[in-house]
């Protein structure tokens, strides 16, 4: 599709050109990004289940007798679930009917239910307060067992429902997502994604941040469910325990079907450590599917840096519960706070740097400007997904569709026109 006006790219990266640990740039004399953990993904929303035989993700027999285990996931049902809807399983670790830990939507009352049975004794049954789940709406659920903190169930960041039982996880049985068993056919009809698991006690901040799409850096299993192809759900965490999709499970795509740079929110990034031209005469582009919504901690989504004394950097990040764009010259920095996207929103961010002003455009609209001064004249470095000069786990969880550095400062009209063009190129559900 024809560009709305001539553009000179200094750097341009789109994820359809990832070869192993390199994201190749468009055109010669531009610079590749080296990937650490980051990899090719897609805009898939998650894994789709049809409440039929072999419609599940099997994670294998893991965490037998695990003393502490927490699981976070997001789900969206095809139809509204309430009391009298058929019981639908979301997650199980099940040896048999008498030895199991299971999370399910209960036909008796419509509530999300966490139940643990050992040796035919029901140790606990805890339930959400909410008793109805609207079809087509995303929900988050976090549940855990612990030999010191007991059992907890948090549905969509409501108050935790607890039980004092300290029993470890079942001593056997595969972990199944989306159904009760491999041939169960009693699972959900809908989508599950962002399955994150750990083996410690979560703090209150970590619990809240999981709801907001920021996994703790010590998460053991992170299934981003964005592969979009094949039958493997890759484990991006330290556990390295890939899951297998059953033959009746598939990848769910919405309106957007694109390659992305997939980040795990723990320690992934893409980086170029030198030769990135950064100055007061450019327009930076960041197009992404957002996977977080105002987490409390630091998440560096994109970070351009010259180094030396002073600021000399452009940072798109979440910090302290808000999204901001920071642009700094040698001595003066300007910061724009943005109305943060919610999880699974797409957005087009343009940041312009002139000798005295930075301007931030969100989906074609100027949202903020701030005074800056001149940056040190030097070549710099860039990281997508973490801090540029020293990646340290301030990691983004986003799906990045494009990043670019453009020569010159876009006017407001150019920003609007270019944003519309990007929206059409990627077929994004954004009103501009």
């Amino acid at each position, binding site marked *: *599709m024809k560009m709305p006006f001539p553009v000179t790219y200094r750097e341009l990266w789109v994820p359809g050109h990832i070869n192993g640990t390199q994201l*190749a740039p468009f055109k010669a004399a531009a610079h590749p990004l080296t990937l650490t953990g980051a990899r090719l993904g897609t805009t898939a929303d998650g894994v789709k289940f049809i409440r039929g035989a072999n419609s599940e993700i099997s994670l294998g027999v893991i965490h037998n007798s695990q003393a502490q285990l927490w699981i976070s996931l997001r789900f969206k049902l095809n139809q509204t679930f309430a009391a009298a809807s058929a019981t639908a399983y979301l997650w199980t670790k099940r040896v048999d009917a008498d030895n199991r830990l299971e999370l399910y939507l209960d036909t008796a009352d419509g509530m999300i239910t966490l139940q643990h049975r050992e040796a035919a004794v029901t140790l606990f049954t805890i339930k959400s307060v909410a008793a109805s789940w609207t079809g087509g709406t995303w929900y988050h659920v976090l549940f855990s067992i612990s030999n010191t903190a007991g059992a907890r169930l948090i549905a969509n960041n409501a108050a935790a429902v607890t039980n004092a039982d300290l029993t470890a996880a079942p001593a056997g049985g595969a972990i199944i997502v989306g159904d009760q068993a491999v041939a169960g056919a009693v699972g959900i009809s809908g989508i599950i994604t962002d399955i994150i698991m750990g083996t410690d006690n979560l703090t209150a901040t970590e619990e809240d941040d999981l709801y907001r799409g920021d996994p703790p850096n010590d998460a053991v299993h992170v299934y981003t469910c964005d592969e979009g192809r094949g039958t493997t759900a890759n484990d991006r965490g330290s556990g390295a325990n890939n899951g297998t999709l059953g033959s009746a499970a598939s990848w769910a795509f919405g309106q957007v079907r694109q390659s992305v740079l997939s980040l795990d929110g723990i320690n992934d990034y893409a980086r170029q450590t030198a030769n990135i031209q950064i100055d007061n005469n450019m327009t930076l582009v960041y197009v992404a599917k957002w996977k977080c919504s105002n987490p409390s901690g630091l998440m560096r989504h994109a970070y351009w840096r010259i180094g030396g004394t002073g600021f000399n950097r452009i940072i798109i990040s979440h910090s302290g519960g808000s999204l901001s764009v920071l642009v700094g010259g040698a001595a003066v920095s300007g910061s724009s706070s943005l109305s943060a996207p919610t999880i699974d929103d797409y957005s087009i961010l343009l940041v312009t740097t002139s000798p005295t002003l930075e301007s931030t455009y969100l989906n074609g609209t100027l949202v903020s400007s701030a005074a800056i001064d001149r940056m040190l004249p030097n070549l710099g470095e860039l990281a997508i997904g973490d801090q540029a000069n020293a990646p340290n786990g301030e990691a983004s969880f986003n799906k990045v569709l494009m990043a670019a550095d453009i020569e010159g400062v876009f006017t407001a009209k150019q920003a609007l026109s270019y944003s519309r063009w990007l929206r059409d190129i990627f077929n994004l559900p954004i009103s501009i």
Partner: protein
Amino acid sequence: MSINDTRLLEELTRDLAAVDQAVNVQPELKQVVFTGNLSNAGTATLVALDALGGTMRNVKVKVWVSGATAGLGITPSWFMTSNTNPVTFVQQTVPNLGAQHALAAAAIEEYANLGDIPEGLQAEFRMASNGNDSGLTYEAYVTYEQ
């Protein structure tokens, strides 16, 4: 309708914009540069392309090798996934991809007419060598229309 009512004008403008876009939908030529090291007495993947967002048409690859030594034999190959097996790369028959042959020093090899990568599929351009290429770098210039 008053003189200040611009609804009809706005409607006409939107229609014109839609027509303009439809008329001007045409593929653009894109160029990507991959760099890396050859694999000593093995096969390296020089280029990897993902056409999830749309068909990549008329893919062409040109490879520059930093300093092929005498006796270096290379064998280029083109692999692609399929709709029925979207994660398995299968070698494609490409008439003009040569069999194993020697490179002169600092050689440029041009591989035209690799064809299209249909929407949703992935492809890789690989190069096998029979040795004597430890430390050799490559630059692969890929053009396609999309």
